[in-house]
């Protein structure tokens, strides 16, 4: 990562606007981090020219679900290291979840994130908690948090168990136009499950978490959203049952959006046969049937976007046994490569994959983004859709290295990211 030279031209690429789904050949001139010309550009001898022949120039990617652990667990990740990881993966905007210590349940906490992250190459947009202390009981100061910069509310990994509390949140949040994100899981059905419940969990002797633990809660949340007209967003959908429910309620006109993670569309429970704790995640990696349903859900539009659920954990924590080690894997650096590989194989275009990382999340959050605007700071990712590469530990910029993707082969890569005066990636280093 480094400051760009004063003048930079992204030359002879294909400029793709996923928000309007428009594509044209051209170049972009950036001066002091500001977009100056798009299409045909004028450069001088001292302009740094980046050859983008054969590459796709797209707006910076957006992740609406990440854990940067600050405040409280800076040993796992900080806003700065998380931003570095995101930037290297092509992201220029990241929403961070409120399960910090203390949790982001007040306007003061929201302001802390915004102030602490100013100047980072990635814009960090905090999600406030639905309830105080993520306890699922009393509503947080939602209005004040939104005023301070919160873009959504969620109790993150702690599902709002009390239906009345969720109803209140869905009704109240409408005033502020923000989505309510509820981790959909019936904790009693989850029981002590640490992996998908199946013949494989039986074989491995590990306690299973059945797919119905998710779909039962998805169903409840959809009913409450239907009744209240509230804006519900379902994070990290992992099961076919949930996709079927979301499809049905979308057809009914319910205001529901949903995301899927790269790991749930890229990996299945079969990764767990060696008890590798890096594969332990919540919700768990599911069956091949579920994985296929998630991909279908994205392609048909039942699921709106891809979000990473980037969840850093220390080596010490992941060295524990399978029952005791914490759930979660990092994902920002491998997100585009893994998703692009899986989804283009399933028949989606590179442009469509870009949409799931840009327009999809922006629409969920209600952001109106006009990319490549002249006079505005650059927010750009450069994509090589053909390149085959192996994801290595050295690609990880996060403070934690807990990724089961290490060693996987991908097709398609973010070759460079620009955010204002900051740049990173092969192409720009």
């Amino acid at each position: 990562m480094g400051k760009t030279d004063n003048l930079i031209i992204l030359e002879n690429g294909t400029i793709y606007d996923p928000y309007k789904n428009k594509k044209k050949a051209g170049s972009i001139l950036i001066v002091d981090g500001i977009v100056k010309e798009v299409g045909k550009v004028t450069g001088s001898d001292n302009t740094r020219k980046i050859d983008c022949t054969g590459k796709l120039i797209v707006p910076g990617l957006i992740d609406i679900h990440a854990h940067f652990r600050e405040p409280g667990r800076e040993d796992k990740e900080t806003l700065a290291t998380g931003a570095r990881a995101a930037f290297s993966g092509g992201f220029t905007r990241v929403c961070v979840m409120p399960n910090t210590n203390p949790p982001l349940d007040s306007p003061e906490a929201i302001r802390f994130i915004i102030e602490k992250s100013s100047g980072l190459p990635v814009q960090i947009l905090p999600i406030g908690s639905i309830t105080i202390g993520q306890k699922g009981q009393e509503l947080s100061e939602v209005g004040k948090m939104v005023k301070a910069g919160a873009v959504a509310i969620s109790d993150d990994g702690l599902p709002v168990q009390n239906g009345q509390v969720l109803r209140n949140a869905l009704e109240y949040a409408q005033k502020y136009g923000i989505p309510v994100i509820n981790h959909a899981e019936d904790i009693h059905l989850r029981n002590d499950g640490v992996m998908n419940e199946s013949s494989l969990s039986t074989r491995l002797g590990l306690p299973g978490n059945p797919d119905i633990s998710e779909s039962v809660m998805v169903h409840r949340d959809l009913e409450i959203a239907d009744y209240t007209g509230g804006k519900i967003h379902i994070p990290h959908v992992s099961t076919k049952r949930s996709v079927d429910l979301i499809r049905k309620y979308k057809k009914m006109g319910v205001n529901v959006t949903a995301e899927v993670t790269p790991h749930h569309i890229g990996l299945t429970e079969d990764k767990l046969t060696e008890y590798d704790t890096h594969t332990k995640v919540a919700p768990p990696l599911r069956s091949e049937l579920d994985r296929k349903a998630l991909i279908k859900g994205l392609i048909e539009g039942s699921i709106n976007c891809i979000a990473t659920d980037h969840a850093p954990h220390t080596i010490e924590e992941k060295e524990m046994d399978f029952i005791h080690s914490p759930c979660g894997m990092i994902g920002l650096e491998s997100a585009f490569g893994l998703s692009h590989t899986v989804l283009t194989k399933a028949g989606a275009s590179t442009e469509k994959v870009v949409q799931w990382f840009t327009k999809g999340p922006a629409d969920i959050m209600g952001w109106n983004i006009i990319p490549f605007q002249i006079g505005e700071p650059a927010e750009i990712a450069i994509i090589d859709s053909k390149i085959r590469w192996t994801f290595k530990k050295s690609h990880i910029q996060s403070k934690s290295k807990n990724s089961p993707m290490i060693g996987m082969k991908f097709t398609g890569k973010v070759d460079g990211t620009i955010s204002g005066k900051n740049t990173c990636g092969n192409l720009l280093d």
Partner: protein
Amino acid sequence: MGSLKNKHLIGLEHTPAKDIQKLIDTGFTFREVLDRPIKKVPSLTGKNIVNLFFENSTRTRISFELAEKRLSADVTNFSASASSVSKGEGLKDTVQNIHAMKMDCAVMRHPVPGSCLQLSKFVDAVVINAGDGTHEHPTQALLDMMSIKEKFGKLKGLNIAIVGDILHSRVALSNIYGLQKMGAKVTLCGPPHLIPRGIQKLGVSVNSDIDEVIEWADALNVLRIQRERMGVGIIPSVREYRDFFGITQERLDAHKKEIVIMHPGPMNRGVEIDSSVADGDQAIILDQVLNGVAIRMSILYLLLGPDEGEVG
């Protein structure tokens, strides 16, 4: 070393039938040793074995210790507190300790499924699984099979039922793998919500009618019902369990057939099995205990002993 396909004994899922056969056959050889006036052989002289028990166990631990001593190995016992396990510590330190102590073999009982496999990846020592959570308990299944073979002279073609709480059992899974590889048929019988999901994919039948199962079976392997699962909404009551799944004298008498009764212990007399059944002529529960020592000698010998030569 190396008389078996695998270096370790982690589970029967990945143990080939011919190795199971060899382990049982060698078990009978050691059974003869146990009938001699001097029950000790020098096969493992100079070998260091550590028994790592992260969970309470009396039978399995004593059985291993006896087997190790009768093979003349040097034995170290290590029992960790349950609290270190509940904090998720332990496994890595265990690995490092085994390295430092230059152990030839680690026998481990641990509450977490997969822990023995994890251990085997990081140590040079031979790892023997003495029970990893609700996963496998291969030495128990081997002694069960040896006991069945002793009784019937064969395993192939026999009908074996496993009765009780299959979901929380490590004995069941190892028996399922082992018995099927040796050509026996397996039926599971227990409360339907204590039968783990998808277990039929392993090739077993499931039947919750104990009387039908008794009619079908040549032998019943009766599992211990954990008293802590009684009356907390999982098993409604002792009397209800006994009515529908208990191996009572009355029930066996009503069937008027010869059937072999096994139990891996420790028993809850009067809960899953009547005292008179456990002590009766059809039970081979004490043979299982003796065979347990013999089969563990066989396992240790085949994994750690000399390549060739007769059992001394």
